[in-house]
């Protein structure tokens, strides 16, 4: 047994092993540097785990409170609540005497761990909390801070698995070209926001992993003829994702796209058996989801979050949704009613700012240049991918496309309107989706490449549709915002594949340089991000 494990470990590619070691170090740094409960909703998610473990059952409508006395005392002592949105004025308590005093107090008279209720996150599915209950249980002897950081460090495992899933995804899409696998694995784990969320006590950590796994398995289903174990695994991962966060209902789109693509790619004689295999696997997805919905209803909970209606609520209409959608991505036209009350283009703030890294409780920003420079890069990447998937007829046409994009982007920069570069990115992404649909309706030339494109576009479309629908309904009913950049992290694998696709099209001599540049940029952003967080909270 041990010999088998050693032999298998010996077969792990050295570049993957080095990447995993690198990711583990950076993950541990994030886990320890971020102050207690200074990630979005981390306090409420921690309370869920504590309720689950201490009471033996998940939070339900019968609970009245969210936090236990133990958590409330710890949060008040460290200043977690006061500092959540105001780290400049109210950083974490760094008084050594306060820390010693806290330790003496909890040692002499521990506060109750079991009088919480986790009620504010009670409607969430339970899978992530079950996962995080393990470190909570393992570290029972120390303070609540020991348990919180044990859960954070446990999250580094998710980050490593996300790296592995990205590596496998690239291996499936590009073949075993380790430089591309390295790039995709690194991007999935080392985009600063991805690392930050993966080590947090937050279901998004598990969601990033499960979606990346689903992308890998979906690619396998398409490229390997829907083998039984692949379709079952894809359905199981999709079910786990839905049991982690309701956003994952968006995974139904890529799952069905993968099944449909595998069926269409199969030889005519095998289509029936392919369909049977897929239909037989579907209960693996459907049964756990239906079971969760039934259990949630039995506990008096909604299976998805309800949106309350505020006094200034708007009617939810299709034209209203289209207005909102336009104004999310593009400048508002004069005849349009205002659908978002913000002074900036939401796509820039969501994709380019929060997608790269806005830490703490969306309260600690990177230096402006980090957002503007990467924001300028994204249209070039998206247009580059569009050119490749649309099979630009000649190198000249492709160069012209990229050149025009560069000129427009530089003009936007000169005019101080970098945010509109994100509109260009969004238009290019829409173009890629259009290409995938056009290839679907064409009768000829639909092969694995087009099937993969359709599948990946379905993942992007499924997630964005769900997010935008939620954002619009919440805006219309409660006049408040919902969209955050971290919600895009489940499709970080698609973004990584886009970068790898461009690297793959470079001349062979230039590829190591491009991979090196990618890794340098990621590590540079990581160092800047960690320094920014350390400075914001502790200096």
């Amino acid at each position, binding site marked *: 047994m041990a010999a088998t494990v050693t032999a298998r470990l010996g077969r792990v590619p050295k570049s993957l092993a080095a990447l995993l070691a690198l990711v583990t170090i950076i993950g541990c740094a994030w886990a*320890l540097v971020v102050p207690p409960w200074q990630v979005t909703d981390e306090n409420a998610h921690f309370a869920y785990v504590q309720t689950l473990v201490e009471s033996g059952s998940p939070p339900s409508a019968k609970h009245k409170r969210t936090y236990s006395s133990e958590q409330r005392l710890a949060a008040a002592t460290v200043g977690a609540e006061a500092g959540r949105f*105001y780290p400049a004025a109210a950083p974490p308590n760094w008084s050594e005497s306060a820390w010693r005093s806290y330790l003496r107090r909890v040692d002499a008279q521990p506060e109750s761990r079991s009088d919480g209720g986790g009620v504010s996150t009670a409607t969430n599915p339970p899978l992530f909390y079950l996962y995080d209950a393990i470190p909570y249980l393992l570290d029972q002897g120390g303070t609540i801070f020991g348990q919180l950081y044990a859960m954070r460090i446990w999250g580094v495992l998710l980050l490593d698995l996300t790296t592995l899933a990205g590596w496998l995804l690239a291996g499936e899409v590009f073949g075993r070209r380790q430089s591309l696998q390295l790039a995709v694995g690194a991007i999935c784990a080392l985009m600063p926001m991805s690392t930050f969320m993966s080590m947090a006590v937050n279901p998004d950590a598990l969601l990033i992993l499960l979606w990346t796994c689903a992308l890998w398995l979906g690619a396998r289903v398409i490229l390997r003829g829907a083998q039984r174990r692949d379709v079952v695994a894809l359905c199981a991962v999709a079910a786990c994702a839905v049991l982690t966060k309701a956003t994952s209902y968006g995974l139904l789109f890529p799952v069905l796209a993968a099944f449909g693509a595998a069926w269409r790619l199969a030889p005519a004689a095998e289509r029936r058996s392919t369909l049977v295999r897929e239909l037989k696997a579907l209960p693996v997805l459907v049964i756990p989801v239906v079971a969760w919905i039934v259990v949630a209803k039995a506990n008096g909970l909604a299976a998805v979050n309800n949106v309350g209606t505020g006094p200034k609520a708007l009617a939810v209409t299709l034209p209203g949704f289209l207005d909102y959608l336009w104004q999310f991505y593009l400048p508002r036209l004069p005849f349009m009613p205002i659908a978002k009350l913000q002074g900036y283009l939401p796509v820039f703030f969501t994709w380019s700012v929060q997608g790269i890294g806005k830490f703490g409780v969306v309260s600690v920003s990177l230096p402006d240049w980090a957002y503007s420079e990467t924001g300028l890069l994204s249209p070039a990447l998206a247009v580059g991918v569009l050119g490749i998937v649309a099979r630009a007829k000649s190198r000249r046409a492709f160069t012209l496309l990229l050149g025009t994009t560069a000129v427009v982007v530089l003009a936007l920069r000169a005019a101080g309107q970098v945010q509109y570069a994100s509109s260009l990115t969004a238009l290019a992404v829409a173009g890629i989706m259009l290409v995938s649909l056009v290839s679907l309706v064409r009768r000829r030339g639909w092969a694995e490449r087009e099937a993969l494109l359709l599948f990946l576009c379905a993942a992007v479309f499924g997630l964005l549709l769900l997010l935008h629908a939620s954002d619009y309904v919440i805006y219309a009913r409660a006049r408040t915002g919902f969209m955050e950049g971290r919600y895009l992290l489940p499709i970080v694998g698609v973004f990584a594949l886009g970068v790898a696709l461009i690297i793959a099209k470079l001349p062979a001599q230039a590829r190591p340089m491009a991979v090196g540049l990618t890794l340098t940029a990621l590590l540079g952003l990581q160092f800047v991000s960690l320094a920014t967080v350390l400075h914001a909270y502790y200096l």
Partner: protein
Amino acid sequence: MTRQRAWAPFSGFALLALAALLISGLRGGPVRAFSLGVPNIKTVAVADPRRQVCEGPVRSQEAFQSVVLWGTYVGGKPQVRVWATSQGGRTLMSTGLVELSSPGVAGPYTATLKPEVARDVQVSVCVVDASGKLRLQGYNPGYAGAAIVGSTPRKAFALVGLESGEHSLLGSLSLAFSRASLFRPSWVGAWAFWLLLVLLLGTLPLGAFAIAAAIRSENDEDSSVSGSEHEP
């Protein structure tokens, strides 16, 4: 590209990036000596010619030269004075003027005090505006327990003290790590952050190794494929 040279581009880029980060990390900036743990959420007091607003007790583990307030200034030429007195207000210890921007623009505002307030001395910090109104922002008392004198129910304005001079990030790492080691698991001390820093620097050679290994593997596969193609 050969195995020997595969790591070179990354190493070059990484060294350049590291140099840029080092230069950036050596730039000076303010470092907080203390915070009262009060967020700047809403207006909690107004300082004007007739009303001074005092808050205490304030005790800092480090000496501080400046204080930062959050608020909105309304009025003509600003003349906001801040001073620190011994707890109880009997002895004036330090005083300074707030550097205000345009009226109506929300702070933070910084006042440099002379002389520096020593560490571990309990003081009150007072604010008065000789010509207009400064709406001070804050909330309920934070973890330090300081509050506006006479406020009922107790309120506190957000207040942060700054150490004298400018400090680079790299030069302040020891302070940051010792602060970050509090409210952590019992086994975590400042040493853990120093170790992490060393390991983080180790990610650069790890990255170079990963790229070299990946390129070598691809070259090996390419040569084995081309070798087998030439076989009869």
